[in-house]
């Protein structure tokens, strides 16, 4: 195998590397579509509308890596946003209100977690229910009305700019990516998630506190939905009970799975999810600048998703183990981390 081919293969083997290549390609394409694309203001700002999606996706990543799913996240985000706005409009300091909103989000996440972790109800079933129940809660709190006019200091988190072009929200996203990346990839807790997501039985037999961890991940997912609510409030400057009740959930799931997280658990990375988010943002932005129809945009993103993975599969050859989201991937990552493999002597 020539070194070039070897290098190429290794790059493709890492899903994150493929995502980077795809982002670059998408960037070039966007640039040919519209000359506005490469303007600095555009480049810095193109991810801003998707920051809250990204924060929720980060939280969901923890859940999915551990082999569960939480589709109530957008409803939790709505309840948190609605609570913050409602508490603020009752005269409480907006930051205190935000704290309370985060608390609410964690509690809702915990409720999911307790049903899943302690009573062993399938997480998809639980969160299908709470998806509706929590949305109902948002309506109960705010009804059909809308709250806006939150103080600028607060809305800057999601909608403010540093020196008029660098969005605050982007920094928030990157900061969370860093912190959560460390939590997921470099701590004992993170290791537990991968173990549980790979084989829950083994994790339990190894003395890992499986129930506690499973409860915790839903709390984390709730918490991230809470932070997303703060960014959401900042970016849109207002909230209604139906906030993010459309295809936002699909956007979140897309970011997670396109980021290479195995939907069956046991593998995935925060970096992948971040890159997937950027890829989607670049594509959407480019196509919007070129005034491609909304439906066409959706189709292109879908088609690209399929084409990219197909291409990856072809390049990677016909072994199914090589798929990025199969569990082997977590493992492969470790192989590359390890020092030069020396064959160990067997007992001869």
């Amino acid at each position, binding site marked *: 195998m020539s070194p070039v081919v070897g290098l190429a293969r290794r790059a493709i083997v890492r899903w994150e590397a493929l995502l980077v290549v795809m982002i670059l390609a998408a960037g070039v394409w966007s640039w040919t579509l519209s000359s506005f694309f490469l303007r600095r203001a555009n480049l810095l700002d193109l991810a801003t509308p998707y920051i809250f999606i990204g924060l929720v996706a980060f939280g969901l990543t923890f859940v999915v890596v551990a082999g569960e799913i939480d589709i109530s996240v957008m409803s939790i985000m709505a309840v948190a946003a609605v609570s913050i706005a409602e508490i603020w409009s009752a005269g409480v300091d907006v930051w205190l209100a935000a704290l309370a909103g985060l608390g609410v989000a964690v509690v809702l996440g915990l409720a999911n977690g307790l049903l899943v972790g302690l009573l062993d109800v399938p997480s998809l079933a639980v969160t299908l229910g709470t998806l509706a129940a929590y949305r*109902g809660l948002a309506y109960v709190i705010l009804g059909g009305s809308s709250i806006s006019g939150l103080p600028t200091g607060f809305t800057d988190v999601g909608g403010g700019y540093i020196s008029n072009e660098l969005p605050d929200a982007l920094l928030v996203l990157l900061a969370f990516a860093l912190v959560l990346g460390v939590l997921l990839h470099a701590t004992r807790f993170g290791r537990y998630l991968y173990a549980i997501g790979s084989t829950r039985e083994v994790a339990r037999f190894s003395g890992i506190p499986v129930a506690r961890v499973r409860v915790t991940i839903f709390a984390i997912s709730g918490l991230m939905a809470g932070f997303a609510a703060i960014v959401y409030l900042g970016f849109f400057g207002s909230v209604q009970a139906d906030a993010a009740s459309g295809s936002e959930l699909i956007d979140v799931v897309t970011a997670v*799975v396109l980021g290479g997280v195995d939907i069956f658990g046991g593998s995935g990375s925060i970096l992948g999810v971040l890159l997937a988010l950027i890829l989607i943002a670049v594509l959407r932005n480019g196509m919007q600048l070129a005034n491609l129809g909304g439906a066409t945009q959706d189709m292109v993103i879908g088609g690209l998703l399929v084409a990219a993975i197909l291409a990856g599969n072809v390049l990677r050859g016909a072994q199914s183990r090589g798929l990025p989201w199969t569990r082997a991937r977590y493992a492969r990552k470790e192989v590359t981390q390890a020092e030069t493999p020396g064959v160990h002597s067997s007992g001869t």
Partner: protein
Amino acid sequence: MKAPGRPAVSAQTLVSAVFRLRELGIGIALLLTVVLFSVRATNFATVSNWQDIASDVAVVIVVAVGETMVVLTRNIDLSVGSIAGLSAYLSAETLSTHHGVPIVVMALIAVGVGLAAGLVNGLLVAVGRIPAIIATLATLSIYRGLVFQATGGDYVFPNELPQSFQNLAAEKPLGLPFLAWVALGVALVGGAVLRWAPWARDFYAIGSSPEAARLVAVPVVRRVITAFAISGALAGLGGFMFAVRFANVDTNTARGFEFDVITAVVIGGVNVFGGSGTILGVTLGALLVATIDNGFTLLKFSEFWKIFFEGTAIVVAVTLDALLKGRVQDALRRRRRPASIPREQEAPA
């Protein structure tokens, strides 16, 4: 030679009883719901209301039967809503431009369109080895995009469709709405296939352990394609049923419908990791959700609390189901020996 003290028949009957219990949890939840609403909600327990529920749930059941087959193989089809929208439009458009076309032909067109879309899904997943959730997330947008391309923002409105077609939804042979008959037929056939057709039994094997399936020479690729094709075809039929029900098709038809379908499948006890689940369970699941929806509508709650209670009711139902299943599994584990260890006399202390 028999192992000493083997419990022969009793264990088997117990186990099969336990297997039947699989649908018990959701059945009980449904029963409780019905009783509760019958007591509390105006007009809940009337024939016409049940006819409404039956037509509400019909499309869900038809598409859920196909979805079940896909989920059994440890895959998922998120594109069913878009497939339904596409076939609804293409078939309705055909009928609106050629009034003479028999309605059966229109249904066949819808099924055909769905089948083609499902085949593409199946090929992407089985041959292209794209994880189903990604592949069908993509085709969800692609097929919906095709609806936009096909319609160009156009639509089919009732006045463009023949009267006979418009009346179809209101027909109730033997008191059961036309659409419910379709659903009943599909559910019965689907259930029988999953029980009796060797190739459909393979779905269970594939979902339970894809590697093991490959080792025993189950044609995994072909079966997965088949499951997606069926799901697509039934989603196509679902599209036809949408057209029948609303006599009105536009780009929004069946948007988000995959959500209702997957809800029914999950509540109906199909394991999302594949390998287990029945059409009976899915049908009960769909009925449960529709009943909860309908009952709370009739309860005259404030609109906002209604959404909350509907969701909560689902959580309660699935929790009940899970707790019951837990019990069953524990019983299974202890099934080996009766509570009192036999042959006491042979082992004196």
